């Protein structure tokens, strides 16, 4: 998000109007660390990175900048998901991109991605339970009217799952920084 904002500022300072998607593509071309593979295209990886940066903001910890979570998520999607799961994921990702593009045009500011993520994840526990229950269905079992939303959740929750895994099992997080240092005092080992 911060890099998107920076690019947008740089470009707007030149007196040029530009959409989020174009920005992302421009940004993608400049990112040597991002990989592409047969499943996730480079522009999709950039989109994934943007979502990841909202789910787990880079400023959370100094070390988290080193994690390259988007690359980890893309790697997991390529090797962990089945062919069918990958197709569902890509379909959901495309829908999310379209949705974000729409939000971007409506709002013309850099918070469209946040709005996108929040629209799916800022829901009540009861709604979450309903979504999780629906996620256990195969796509053919989902009501046609709910199919797009179902696919978007498939994609978003998978990105979230892999982001959490990548973050909390990373050496710079788990191996060095005691995240629970502010655990209620006094800390009492229980034996």
């Amino acid at each position, binding site marked *: 998000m911060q890099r998107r904002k920076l690019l947008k500022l740089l470009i707007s300072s030149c007196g040029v109007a530009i959409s989020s998607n174009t920005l992302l593509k421009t940004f993608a071309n400049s990112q040597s660390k991002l990989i592409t593979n047969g499943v996730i295209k480079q522009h999709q990886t950039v989109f994934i990175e943007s979502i990841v940066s*909202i*789910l*787990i903001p880079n400023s959370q910890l100094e070390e988290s900048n080193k994690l390259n979570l988007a690359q980890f998520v893309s790697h997991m999607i390529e090797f962990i998901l089945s062919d069918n799961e990958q197709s569902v994921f890509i379909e959901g990702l495309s829908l999310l991109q379209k949705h974000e593009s729409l939000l971007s045009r409506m709002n013309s500011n850099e918070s469209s991605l946040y709005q996108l993520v929040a629209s799916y994840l800022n*829901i009540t526990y009861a709604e979450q339970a309903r979504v999780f229950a629906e996620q256990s269905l195969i796509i053919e079992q989902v009501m046609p009217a709910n199919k797009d939303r179902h696919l978007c959740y498939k994609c978003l929750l998978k990105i979230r799952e892999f982001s959490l895994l990548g973050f909390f099992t990373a*050496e710079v997080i788990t191996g060095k920084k005691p995240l*629970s240092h502010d655990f209620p005092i006094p800390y009492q080992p*229980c*034996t």
Partner: protein
Amino acid sequence: MTIKSTPTFDAIVIGSGISGGWAAKELCEQGLKVLVLERGRMVRHGLDYPTAHLDSWQLPFRNSPNQHDLTQQPKQARTGFAINQDIKHWFVNDIDHPYEEKNRFDWIRGYHLGGRSLTWGRQCLRLSDLDFSANINDGHAIDWPVRYKDIAPWYDKVEQFIGVTGEKLGLAHLPDGIFQPPMPLNCIEKDFKSKLAQHYGNRYLTIGRVAHLTNDKNILGRTNCTYRNRCMRGCPSGSYFSSNSSTLPAAQRTGNLTIRPHSIVSKIIYDNHAKLATGVEVIDANSHEKQFIPAKIIFCCASTVATTAILLQSKSLRFPDGLGNDSKQLGHNLMDHHFRVGATAEPATFDDKYDKGKRPVGFHIPRFRNIEQCKANAPEEVDFVRGYGFQGYATRSDWRRGFKEMSFGHNMVKSLAKPGPWKIALIGFGECLPRHENKLTLNYDKLDQWGLPTVSFDCKFGDNEAKMRKDMKNQAIEMLKKAGYSNVTPYDKGSSPGQAIHEMGTARMGKDPKTSIVNKHNQIHSVANVYVTDGAFMTSSGYQNPSLTYMAFTARAAHHAVKQLKQGLFNNAKA
């Protein structure tokens, strides 16, 4: 270690797992020259545990199973853990080692030295007379030809060698062993224990009895458990018992042991004149060359299914249906425990405490159903026979609780980095009745890459297990509610035979050669120099994890075999 050109062995042990290791140790220590045949690769203790010291970030895909492995190990993957990156090398490739299932049967295997002794759950629970007399008391299958007093000294011997940590309870139906100091319960487990004592006169909570060292006394080559809780990767300090760390090194120290990996036993050769087995036919797993290796004693310790498959393959004019199969029981009475049923809850107390360390064992609630002493205290009416116990644990949930909700951003990370609520889980383990119709057979229409018939399973849990599961769930709910815990949530994820990896039966022990395969000494009734001491000999399953019983019976059988050999009873076994 390679075989000599003209090998002469007193005994051949087929398989190097938990039973095979004990057979090798006991036979070698009594002076016999022993050959252990292992169908898989060599695994050197400490040296061949490739993931033992790896952290989460050092494992591919952060230890998640990948698609390629799922295509290669689809049946092993049913466990939910066997194809994780840290342990997948201990489980077979299902494409290379196929089997058939008429009803779902999870045959979870490892083909390497030490077998499943490297990956076992390490629970060590003795059977009791309640178990040895169960069949005769409720009229299922046949009676065991042994009682607890026959095997108790051998339990003692095994426990002292392998090292078992636990607490003595003084229960007749779960006899105490010779224990090393118990691992500690945490605060929630202690709380639950006291609540059970408060509400029930016959339900006890104790720390799991497991084969880990805790007593600060060295057992050669092994040291105390350091609570790494990475046991299934192989323990470099030998802190839990495995063949690799314990029995096979003991056997090797005698100078009497030869281990031959990559050696698949295709059949046991029988001499009708001597009425004894003369040796085994072995296929080299790599070259596919066949070789006959003679011996005076054969110990079948290849694991329940593999042992019975070898016996079924060992056809002769005398035994057209498989070695020792006069009773036609070989392959029948297949059993496993049923589990994956119980309840969870969230104790709302002890928020300021944390379960320190990575204790590699949970707690245990011994069987409390259909036990005379319990009936005397509080008569119970249940609609099933036999019983079940619970295994369980209490812990604070970690960051993975985040998978079950949808928060995001700074607050999510901060929240998940802290210990979550306490959670307690009860997992029922129930006895499975021995039923003739539950069986394995050989499929000669589908051969494996060595030209051997593949195994076909036809096994289902029955009505008694279904009724027991309802009670397991209801009792788990009741106990957690009586303890005053919140969010009591029952579950029954279903259980398929094989899934507990306690498959047993198929060459059962009994008094009568007309109804059983082996006698009370684990000898095949009609082939006295062939012993079956892995799970195949089990006549009933009990609810207890069975490995300790396999080890005790194996040690006992090995001493019997040496005695018989010294009496000259096997001298006619000539190739």
